[in-house]
């Protein structure tokens, strides 16, 4: 049909600006760009590429020379994960029973907002290097996560069986008979997924001194024993990649019951330390000296420099780094999913893609960041790359799987035509849903990477602990938790506002 009034037809807005999801994406992109200008991104080591080549060389010559230490480290890593996740899932299930109460929801949000490593740093102060420190460091935040996800899963079950019965007083019995049998398959796959996360959490606990993988990895790395590092990582990947074969339901009770015996002896708990920690160490300094709450000026004098010198810069850097890492994750995801999508390339190419994504998501961000930091020197760059690689591989895997479920009409284009006109529009909403879901997780990790020397909140927390100022450390941990809860709420608002309804419970096998 000819158009008599040429020039009157308005084409749609460029870049799809008419769509809310695109507008939100562009805002995030802009924020990340500004953050990039403000942040400190550089490589400071004298010979980063030579060191990286030597590191890569380690993977060609993995060394099993210290197989004894390695086996012990892996056994303990798996042991801490089993005990911590088992306790966390039981506690989470019990908390879930009361998830209709706002207080319980807030409590769970709070305990999961504090990273495993921060919990470990807290427990180290009074339990010392006792196995209990590692177990609780995993169990507590995981309980908060389990409670939330189990509650979401339970909400999806059919309520009718409960409605036809006379009211049952015990919430536990109600859940056991009516909810758990219906939700069991979902609960099981989610718990197995969290166990995989537990292996990673357990591995990085080694960085604060517990006898897991991170401990040996760090010492091998600083000595430049890259062949040993490579062997450790490769066996760790192997353990995770083969989970589906060795993690049989029938063997699970055996693993859980045996695990407590593989945590090592540690050091005995000095109970007087426990009391002192709560009654003296964490009490804000001015209150310790007998000043009562009625003179707030002294408290302000205590708080004000902490706020100026630690809280504000810590928050600033954490937020900047989080936003850069989030967008870097997004970009990597949009590339990574292509590697495992059946719409691009055959089975052989996809299995290479899968291998890349498995390695990416099995390597804890913390370990990646640690290694890159050693190779490139201190700046935000190693953290951004580590966070983007790990999270991009996780979301890329999920989006790739979704893309494989799409049935396209015959005769679609190839290459960028296929990518931009067929796949991206269909996958963009679930992609954003997963991304915003991980926003809060990325922030948690960003804060913790401070322990490695990047000036996020974790850096100030770690320094406060080193200077034996536990009152300050605890205050900073609370600030970190609040930031995390705020981002969680913001993300939920955004997802609701954009109607991103995908429930991203990744059941990564």
């Amino acid at each position, binding site marked *: 049909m000819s158009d008599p009034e040429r020039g009157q037809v308005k084409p749609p807005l460029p870049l799809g600006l008419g769509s809310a999801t695109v507008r939100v994406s562009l805002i995030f992109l802009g924020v990340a760009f500004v953050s990039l200008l403000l942040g400190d991104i550089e490589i400071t080591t004298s010979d980063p590429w030579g060191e990286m080549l030597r590191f890569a060389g380690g993977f060609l010559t993995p060394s099993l020379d210290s197989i004894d230490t390695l086996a012990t480290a892996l056994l303990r890593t798996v042991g801490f994960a089993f005990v911590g996740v088992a306790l966390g899932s039981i506690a989470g299930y019990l908390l879930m029973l009361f998830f209709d109460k706002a207080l319980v929801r807030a409590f769970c949000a709070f305990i999961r907002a504090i990273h495993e490593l921060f919990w470990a740093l807290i427990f180290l102060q009074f339990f010392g290097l006792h196995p209990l420190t590692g177990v609780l460091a995993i169990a507590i935040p995981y309980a908060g996560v389990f409670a939330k996800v189990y509650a979401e899963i339970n909400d999806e079950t*059919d309520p*009718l*069986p*409960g*409605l*036809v*019965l*006379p*009211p*049952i*007083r*015990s919430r*536990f*019995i*109600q859940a*056991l*008979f*009516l909810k758990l*049998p*219906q939700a*069991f398959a979902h609960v099981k796959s989610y718990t197995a997924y969290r166990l995989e996360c537990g292996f990673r959490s357990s591995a990085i606990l080694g960085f604060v001194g517990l006898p897991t993988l991170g401990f040996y990895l760090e010492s091998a790395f600083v000595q430049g024993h890259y062949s040993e590092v490579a062997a450790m990582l490769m066996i760790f990947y192997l353990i995770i990649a083969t989970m589906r074969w060795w993690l049989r339901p029938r063997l699970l009770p055996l693993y859980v019951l045996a695990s407590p015996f593989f945590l090592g002896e540690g050091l005995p708990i000095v109970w007087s330390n426990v009391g002192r920690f709560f009654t003296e160490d964490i009490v804000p300094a001015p209150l310790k000296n007998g000043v009562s709450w009625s003179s707030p000026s002294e408290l302000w004098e205590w708080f004000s420099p902490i706020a100026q010198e630690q809280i504000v810069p810590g928050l600033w850097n954490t937020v900047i780094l989080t936003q850069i890492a989030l967008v870097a994750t997004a970009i990597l995801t949009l590339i990574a999913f292509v590697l495992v999508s059946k719409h691009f390339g055959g089975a052989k190419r996809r299995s290479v893609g899968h291998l890349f994504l498995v390695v990416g998501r099995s390597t804890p961000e913390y370990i990646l960041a640690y290694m890159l930091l050693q190779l490139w020197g201190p700046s935000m760059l190693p953290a951004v790359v580590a966070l983007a690689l790990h999270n991009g591989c996780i979301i890329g895997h999920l989006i790739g799987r979704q893309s494989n479920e799409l049935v396209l009409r015959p005769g679609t284009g190839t290459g960028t035509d296929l990518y931009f006109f067929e796949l991206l529009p269909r996958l963009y909403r679930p992609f954003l849903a997963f991304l915003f879901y991980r926003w809060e997780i990325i922030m948690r990790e960003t804060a913790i990477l401070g322990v490695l020397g990047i000036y996020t909140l974790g850096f100030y927390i770690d320094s406060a602990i080193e200077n034996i100022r536990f009152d300050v450390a605890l205050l900073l941990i609370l600030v970190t938790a609040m930031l995390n809860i705020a981002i969680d709420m913001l993300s939920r608002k955004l997802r609701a506002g954009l109607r991103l309804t995908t429930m991203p419970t990744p059941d990564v096998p």
Partner: protein
Amino acid sequence: MHVVLQAVSLRIERGEHVALVGKSGVGKSTLLKLAFSALTRSVTAGADPMPSIAFLPQELGLVTQLPVFHNVYMARLARYGRLQNLRNFVWPQAARAAEMESILGQLDMPSSLRTAVASLSGGQKQRVAVARALYQEAEVLLADEPCSALDGPQADNVLQLLTSSFTASIVALHDVDLALKHATRVIGLRDGRLALDEPSATLRAADLGFLYE
């Protein structure tokens, strides 16, 4: 707004077994659901103490992942203590199993306690739900088409059992002959209103025909 059911007021005496009849979509299920929630959730100001109610909806409300034993046992979760419930979840008591076995035997489903409900046929599932209602030992039964998936003799048997086990009942039925045979009183709904309320002894099948026009 589409009104399924107009204001309805019913008084059922002890010893009365009501058959609720009418075309499908006329509001029988809605009436039963409303009656159930009114009888269980509100405490009436009247002098009568609330009777205990067993409710058997059309969708049955079974937990199909669990065996027959657990589904029938659920009727007594509120009656027994937490520890006993927990014990029976893990390790069913022989006494409870024996009680159920006698009920299931009468329903022509002997030795099925260990079978997962998911693997049962529609008619078998329906009888498990009937067994659950019977096992509750309540005074009043509210049931919505409790034998729609059963053949003639079985349906007869189930209704016989139900009416003899409860002191009063309201059962929605689409089969007019069954209604006349087992109920003491028949209530007919038409266009969302009470169109008929008579003792069944005075009725014949032809008298109900107008409800289905």
